[in-house]
């Protein structure tokens, strides 16, 4: 009895069963005529030789792990420098790797190449201008940066947003998550050698960005979510645009399954690579998909709901092993969950104001300026002087595509933040890179860096 799907197990398995052995075929190859036996007829010696050939070992040699001398002297390791201009480091991340042969021993991420002092600049800009500053930190999910800054400002002001503003914010935040994860799928695919995935990811992301352009006027760095609401109402026909995005991206996410999820090369490069346990992740303050890949169901949208996430039905995706493949699956499935959320938001979008009708933070409508001197003065004041925020300090956190995005805001009662600190998830998650790389191959380093999904604009701020 020979099962044609049986790919054989250990070297002790018997591959040949009497009576079923077929007549060997002769195949013409570039190296002459070669005898090819059907796969079930491959005997263990031949199989081992094949595996040895794949591993580029000399024929017939089987590596005995007991022969490797682990106790090597220190001077046999070498330190190499990867980046900051390495194309696979997602920007300007520089890694110093200590290698023993091809095995990574120690890693030190060196950052700061993109540091532009945005926290210092945030202290020089009013709260009205502040969202144009923070939006440039995590440039793959700018709307989330604006959201956390606006929520922190509103917490200090003690304002509650009108329902439509809240739901528009949720809609945009989830669309941003879809686009950010698509971008990650694209670059991760490229890092693993799948250039088709890169093209596909960018193609789908373009649809989301086109909707952002239609709504906010800009593809990125939108300055759309502002303290007091959002800058503009959704455009006419937005339901159709959103539904087309949902339909297309959802259908294509199953194409990614065909392209990557079941593909043997992709799985070999990701499964069991870059493992981290839940204890290690928590100790290193790692959040987001990396923490969830270890099985900890920690998603701020569920655990500490903000906006109106407690009124929505969605699942928190968790992994089991904490390896690259789990992080890939989590992000792919989070795209689908976000689409579920977007559809619910589109269905239940409440009517009403898209920004708070509080004369303190909201400028008067444009039409009023032509007829009212007070409105003109008020408008001028809001945009030059800004509004004053009561003294206090607040820490607000949201779930960005990369983890906990926090904003610690201190106000001294003036119209500018006294201290603006952004807790960037990429900055903290980078601490896990040495742990993830340790003991792995240098060839896997690129895949592991990619699976952490660092955005250097947010790391360096």
């Amino acid at each position: 009895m020979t099962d044609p799907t049986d790919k054989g197990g250990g070297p002790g398995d018997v591959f040949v069963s009497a009576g079923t052995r077929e007549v060997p075929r002769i195949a013409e190859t570039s190296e002459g005529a070669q005898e090819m036996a059907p796969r079930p007829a491959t005997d263990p010696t031949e199989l081992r030789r094949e595996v040895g050939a794949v591993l580029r070992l000399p024929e017939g040699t089987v590596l005995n792990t007991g022969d490797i001398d682990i106790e090597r002297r220190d001077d046999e390791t070498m330190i190499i420098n990867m980046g900051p201009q390495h194309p696979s480091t997602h920007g300007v991340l520089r890694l110093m790797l200590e290698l023993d042969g091809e095995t990574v021993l120690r890693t030190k991420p060196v950052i700061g190449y993109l540091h532009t002092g945005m926290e210092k600049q945030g202290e020089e800009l009013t709260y009205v201008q502040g969202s144009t500053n923070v939006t440039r930190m995590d440039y793959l999910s700018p709307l989330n940066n604006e959201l956390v800054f606006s929520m922190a400002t509103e917490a200090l002001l003690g304002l509650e947003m009108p329902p439509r503003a809240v739901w528009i914010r949720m809609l945009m935040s989830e669309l941003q998550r879809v686009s950010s994860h698509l971008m990650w799928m694209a670059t991760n695919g490229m890092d693993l050698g799948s250039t088709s995935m890169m093209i596909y990811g960018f193609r789908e992301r373009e649809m989301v960005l086109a909707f952002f352009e239609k709504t906010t006027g800009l593809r990125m760095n939108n300055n759309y979510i502002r303290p007091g609401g959002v800058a503009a109402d959704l455009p006419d026909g937005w339901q159709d645009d959103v539904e087309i995005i949902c339909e297309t991206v959802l259908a294509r996410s199953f194409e990614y399954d065909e392209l990557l999820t079941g593909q043997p090369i992709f799985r070999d490069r990701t499964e069991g690579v870059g493992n981290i346990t839940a204890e290690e992740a928590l100790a290193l303050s790692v959040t987001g998909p990396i923490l969830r890949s270890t099985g900890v169901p920690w998603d701020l949208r569920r655990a500490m709901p903000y906006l109106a996430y407690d009124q929505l039905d969605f699942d928190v995706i968790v992994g089991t092993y904490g390896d690259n493949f789990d992080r890939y699956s989590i992000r792919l499935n989070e795209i689908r969950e976000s689409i579920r959320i977007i559809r619910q938001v589109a269905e239940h979008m409440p009517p009403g104001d898209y920004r708070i009708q509080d004369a303190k933070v909201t400028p008067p409508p444009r039409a009023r300026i032509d007829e009212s001197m007070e409105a003109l003065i008020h408008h001028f004041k809001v945009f030059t002087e800004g509004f004053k925020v009561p003294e206090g300090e607040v820490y607000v956190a949201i779930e960005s595509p990369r983890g906990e995005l926090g904003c610690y805001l201190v106000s001294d009662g003036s119209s500018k933040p006294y201290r603006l600190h952004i807790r960037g998830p990429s900055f903290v998650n980078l601490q896990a890179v040495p742990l993830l790389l340790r003991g792995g191959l240098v060839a896997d380093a690129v895949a592991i860096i990619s699976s952490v999904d660092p955005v250097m604009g947010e790391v360096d701020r």
Partner: protein
Amino acid sequence: MSPADAAVGAAAPSADVQDPVVPVPVAPPPAFLPAVPRSAGSGGEEIAFPDRAHYVELVRAYRNAGFELCADLCAVDYLSHPGRSLPDGVEPERFEVVVNLVSLSEKRRVRVRVQVPEAEPAVPSLIEVYPGVDAMEREAFDLLGVRFEGHPDLTRILMPEDWEGHPLRKDYGVGRVPVQFKEAPGPR
């Protein structure tokens, strides 16, 4: 798997099948938190104000009480805003180190604010309690010049290594580059 676990697994084969979704089991011992001034934040979260001597002890007590994650650590320079509101018994100093802790099991946050004097801007490092504060303490040192005693690698992280000064201090100017626009007329 340790030998003890293996023995358990051998005795009861079903014991090693664990639900992978369960988070890290942290058995919170009876919470014994040092008495320090406290207040409540705008979100209802607890804010504790230890002095430097009880800072690590308090954070360790929070860690043992089930706050598994240190979400954030940053420093603030209160040079030009000395009159901020603090609870009774807390002497305002120029610097403040702010630590945000999260309890995953209880889904709640706590904030620890410790006053750091200008004359000796140093606090003990939390790296023994939360290894994840490594980069955050380096950032606070780099940008505000607060030293974290006991940190194994307290070097600049964002600024160049040879940079002088700490940019997020309030007495550190923003710096401006004069911009000459193309069509701007010269001075009259």
